[in-house]
C-alpha cells in the first residue's frame, strides 16, 4: 500500500476537527486534575487519620488501574445509578480524576521540598501558621511545581485517544473512522502520530524553558 498525498489532503479537515476536541479534552482535563489534585493533597494532610488513609487508598487504587477501564466504568456503569454524562464530560472527568492522583503528589512534594529551615525561620520570626503558608511556604513551593504539573498535562494529552473508546470524536476516533470507511490505515494513523509528536516535542521544549525559569532558587 502506497502513501497517498491526495488522500492526506482529503482527510485533513476531518482530522483537524478531531484535533480540536483532543485539545479541548486536554485543557478541561488539566483543569479538573489541578483542582481535584489540590483537594486530594489537602485531604491527604488531614489530621483525621481515617480521611487521609481513605484518600490515600482511593488514590492508589485509581493509579493502579487502567484509565481505559475507568472510562468504561464512568460511561457504562454510572448511568445505572442515574449519573448520565455526555461522552466528552465523562472523558474529561475520567482523565481529570485519574491525573489528579498524580498532581496531588506534585503538590505534596512541592510543599515538602520547602526546607524545614523555612518553617523554622517563619516560626522564629513569630509568623502564624497561616502567615507562614501564605508568605513563606507557598510562594516557594509553587514555582517548582509548575514544570512537574506541565509534564503531567503533556502525558494527559497523549492519553486522550483513550476517549475514543467511549465514543468521543477526538483525533484518534476521527482517524479510525476514516480508516474504517476507506480501508486505509497508513495515512490517518501516521498523521495522528505526527500530530502527537509535533505537539509533544513543542511542549517538551516549552517545558525545558519552564524548568530553567523555575530552577530552584537557593538560600
Amino acid at each position, binding site marked *: 500500500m502506497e502513501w497517498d498525498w491526495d488522500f492526506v489532503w482529503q482527510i485533513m479537515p476531518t482530522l483537524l476537527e478531531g484535533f480540536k476536541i483532543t485539545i479541548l479534552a486536554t485543557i478541561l482535563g488539566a483543569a479538573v486534575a489541578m483542582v481535584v489534585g489540590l483537594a486530594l493533597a489537602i485531604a491527604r494532610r488531614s489530621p483525621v487519620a481515617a480521611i487521609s488513609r481513605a484518600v490515600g487508598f482511593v488514590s492508589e487504587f485509581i493509579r493502579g488501574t487502567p484509565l481505559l477501564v475507568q472510562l468504561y466504568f464512568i460511561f457504562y456503569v454510572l*448511568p445505572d445509578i442515574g449519573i448520565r454524562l455526555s461522552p466528552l464530560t465523562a472523558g474529561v472527568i475520567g482523565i481529570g480524576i485519574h491525573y489528579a492522583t498524580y498532581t496531588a503528589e506534585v503538590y505534596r512534594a512541592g510543599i515538602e521540598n520547602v526546607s524545614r529551615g523555612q518553617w523554622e525561620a517563619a516560626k522564629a520570626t513569630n509568623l502564624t501558621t497561616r502567615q507562614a503558608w501564605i508568605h513563606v511556604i507557598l510562594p516557594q513551593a509553587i514555582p517548582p511545581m509548575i514544570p512537574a504539573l506541565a509534564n503531567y498535562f503533556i502525558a494527559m494529552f497523549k492519553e486522550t485517544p483513550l476517549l475514543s473508546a467511549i465514543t468521543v470524536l477526538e483525533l484518534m476516533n476521527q482517524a479510525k473512522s476514516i480508516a474504517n470507511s476507506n*480501508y486505509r490505515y497508513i495515512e490517518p494513523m501516521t498523521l495522528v502520530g505526527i500530530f502527537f509528536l509535533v505537539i509533544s516535542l513543542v511542549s517538551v521544549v516549552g517545558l525545558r524553558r519552564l524548568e530553567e525559569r523555575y530552577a530552584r532558587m537557593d538560600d
Partner: protein
Amino acid sequence: ADDKLEQLKEQGFARIAIANEPPFTAVGADGKVSGAAPDVARVIFEKLGVKEVVASISEYGAMIPGLQAGRHDAITAGLFMKPERCNAVAYSEPILCDAEAFALKKGNPLKLTSYKDIADNPNAKIGAPGGGTEEKLALEAGVPRDRVIVVPDGQSGIKMLQDGRIDVYSLPVLSIHDLIAKAKDPNLETVAPVVNAPVYCDGAAFRKQDVALRDAFDVELKKLKESGEFAKIIEPYGFSAKAAMSTSREKLCAAAK
C-alpha cells in the same frame, strides 16, 4: 495461488476475523466461537483439508485493513457485500442474508422508520458499529457525522439506547432481535425491517490475491448448499438458506451504484 490453501493445510488452521454479534458470530462463556458465519466457515475449511479455524474478534472497520495486512486469512463475520467492499476484497458466494432493523425506545417516540427519517430529525442520534453497513447507510441517507455515534459492540449499543445517549441503534434484523431478547427490557422495541433499506447478504471475504482459495471455498459452499447441510447449519440461528441461494455475488456486487 493454490499455495495459499496448501499453506493453510500445512499449518493446520485458518485465521478468521469475526465480530461478536450474535447470531452472525458469537463467543460463548467458555470462549468457544460459534455463530452462523464461523460455523459455515469451519465446515467448509474442514472439507478443504484445513482442520481448524482460529478466530479473532475485530471491529467491522478493522476487518478489511486487517485482511489486507495479512492478519486474517478470511473474514466470516456478517460483513455484507457492497460494491466498494467487493472492490477491496474477494467475496465468496452469499452465505447469510438479512435486512436492517432499528432498536428504539418503546413507542418509537421520534417516529423513526428509515435512515432518511433520522437525517430529517435534527435531534435524532443513531448508533451503529464503526465501519459497518449501518453506519454507511446512515451517512448515505444524509445523517451528519456528529449524529452517527460509533458504538463498539451490541451490548454498548443497547446500553446507550437505554441511557438515552442514542435514539436508535441499528443492526441487521436477527442481531437486533437477539439483543432485545437478551436485554429483556420492556421499554425497548424494534423496527424491522427498516423502510427502504435493502436486504444484504454476506460472504466469506478473502484477499484479492487469494482468489484461488476463494474459488475452492465456493466449490465446497455450493456442495454444502446443495446437500442441505447448509440449511441445517444456519437455520437454527434464524437465517434463511433460501435467501442466500436465490441471489449471487455477481448481483450483490453490481447492485445499486
